[in-house]
């Protein structure tokens, strides 16, 4: 592979990335640092934010069952969403990849469509479908399948369903990318050696698109765990996840330091899981794909 001569390049990489770097530092890094510092402050109902530095907020989150439940619920829902995205997205991608010319792009567009719609509009659309008087319940009752409406709004099921719908495109894109690298003849080779279609898929195709499935899972998990709008609208104020809990601390109880601590913990948990998983995947597939 061709490499660049460092002597000839000089300082141009720094100059070229400079503007983006500046934006990145001012708009992302600085607020993060400020949030981190805020999370160490204290809050009192009478005096507001007290500028002292202590880990009291973190201790509160770690020791309160209320927060344990929220964190566990968030992790569980993110995991469920990831699982459903794998179960739906992988076969979906495989099927679309095998389609012929006009259909292929059409269906890809349909799959990626949700990303083109504002998250609030899309989620409110789901709320209309899922409500007790929503379309789904009306149809179910009209068909006589249930007598009373099934509760879907403000349930974990509803949140997982809508998040899966929103996040499946990311799985499809990731698996699509790994499928493009797959040599069609490899599948034929599997068949020619006497493996059935199923075995060929399991032993030959699946291991090769595994990196795509894993990176898709990591993206989906991270987005599901930090999702705000969907749990806020579909889950409501009671069924809290970490992101909505942080929001409520900021804007409901006005306890900014505690909200900041929750936000920082969510970021750390997400980072640990995402980085851990990708390290694991890299090590697992290191000798195969590079």
């Amino acid at each position: 592979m061709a490499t660049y001569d460092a002597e000839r390049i000089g300082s141009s990489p720094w100059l070229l990335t400079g503007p983006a770097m500046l934006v990145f530092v001012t708009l992302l890094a600085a607020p993060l640092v400020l949030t981190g510092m805020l999370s160490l402050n204290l809050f009192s109902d009478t005096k507001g934010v007290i500028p002292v530095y202590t880990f009291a907020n973190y201790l509160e989150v770690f020791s309160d069952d209320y927060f344990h439940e929220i964190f566990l619920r968030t992790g569980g829902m993110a995991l469920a969403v990831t699982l459903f995205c794998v179960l739906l997205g992988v076969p979906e991608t495989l099927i679309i990849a095998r389609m012929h010319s006009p259909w292929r792009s059409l269906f890809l567009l349909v799959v990626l469509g949700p990303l083109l719609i504002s998250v609030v509009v899309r989620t409110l659309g789901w709320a209309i479908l899922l409500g007790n008087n929503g379309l789904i319940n009306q149809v179910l009752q009209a068909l006589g399948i249930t007598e009373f409406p099934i509760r879907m709004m403000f349930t974990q099921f509803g949140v997982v369903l809508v998040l899966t719908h929103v996040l499946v495109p990311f799985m499809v894109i990731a698996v699509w990318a790994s499928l493009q690298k797959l040599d069609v003849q490899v599948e034929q080779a599997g068949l020619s050696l006497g493996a059935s279609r199923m075995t060929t898929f399991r032993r030959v195709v699946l291991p090769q698109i595994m990196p795509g499935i894993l990176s898709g899972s990591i993206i989906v998990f991270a987005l599901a765990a930090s999702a705000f709008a969907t749990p806020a609208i579909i889950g409501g104020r009671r069924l809290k996840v970490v992101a909505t809990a942080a929001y409520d601390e900021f804007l409901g109880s006005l306890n900014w330091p505690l909200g900041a601590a929750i936000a920082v913990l969510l970021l750390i948990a997400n980072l640990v899981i995402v980085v851990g998983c990708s390290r694991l995947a890299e090590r697992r597939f290191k000798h195969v794909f590079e």
Partner: protein
Amino acid sequence: MTFLTLDGIVKTYGDFTAIAGLDLSVEKGEFLSLLGPSGCGKTTTLQSIAGFVQPTAGRIVLDGRDITHVRPEKRGLGIVFQSYALFPHMTVAENVSFGLEMRGVPRSERVGRVQSALDMVRLHGLGARYPKALSGGQRQRVAIARALAIRPDLLLLDEPMSNLDAKLREDMHIELRAIQRDLGITTILVTHDQVEAMTMSDRIAVMHGGRIVQIGSPFETYERPQSPFASSFLGKTNAFAGAIHTRKPRCYEVKVDNLMFHVPHEGHQFDGNVNVYLRPEKIRLAEPTEARLRGTVRMRVFLGNLWLIGIESPLGPVNVTQPNFGAPPPMEGEEVGLTWLDDDLRLLEQEVAHGHV
């Protein structure tokens, strides 16, 4: 004994005809090449035999068994793919072992058979490597070992050498041929490389427009092409457009411009406009005085073992090759004489040009 029979194979894709009624018999242990330019239907033919393409019409019979509608995984053929199609997530040994595993060969036996397959292609000791860590030539050997490890009845080679560099390709031709002879395995090679086809095959089937236009031993096919297409695709040739002048008992007299060619009679009936073909290596440079045709050297190219000499003659450009033996040929601009043996002349009817002459 006929081992593989293709009987009236047709494959159409909408309006496009990939194979237009193809009949072929392959003997047991034979090495047959399907040779032709891209789009001639050779790969589709191979894919039909492999079972990846379902023929629109026709029958494929392997060792007395009609396999036309048998699924590819039940055909038990060894295939070496153009891209090698190795499993990148498996080691070399696992790749070779895969087919054996699918056939339910017990683990203890698999180890030995993988070993001997790798030894056969001289990859001893590389079993633990991943394909990524191998060179192109080694990958190809793995693909061959993988296809042969299952001891298939029939070996299909789909342009297996096209990703190798020239030197390696020549070595592989000889080596693969030796392996094929040793195992006595019936083999079909698809290639567009005439040297490859000639080096390895017992018979060459020249394909054009979804049909086999000529089939025979490499020597026979090269020496007695039966169509302008075959004569220009297999090797290079000089074509002179002329007309039959007189028919004699042993030869035709063909008039090209004001030069008379005496072309030996081979049983075909010719009339009217014909082409006289003469291969570059069949022409000798001679003193202008004793020459049948005179011309001026337009260019000379040194190819190492050969000289390629382009000559401008009254009949148009003539290409001559001459072994690099003795003194170098005349310089550009010099006048030379050309001579040949009448027995080396070939006659074919003029056809609509295929763009290959």
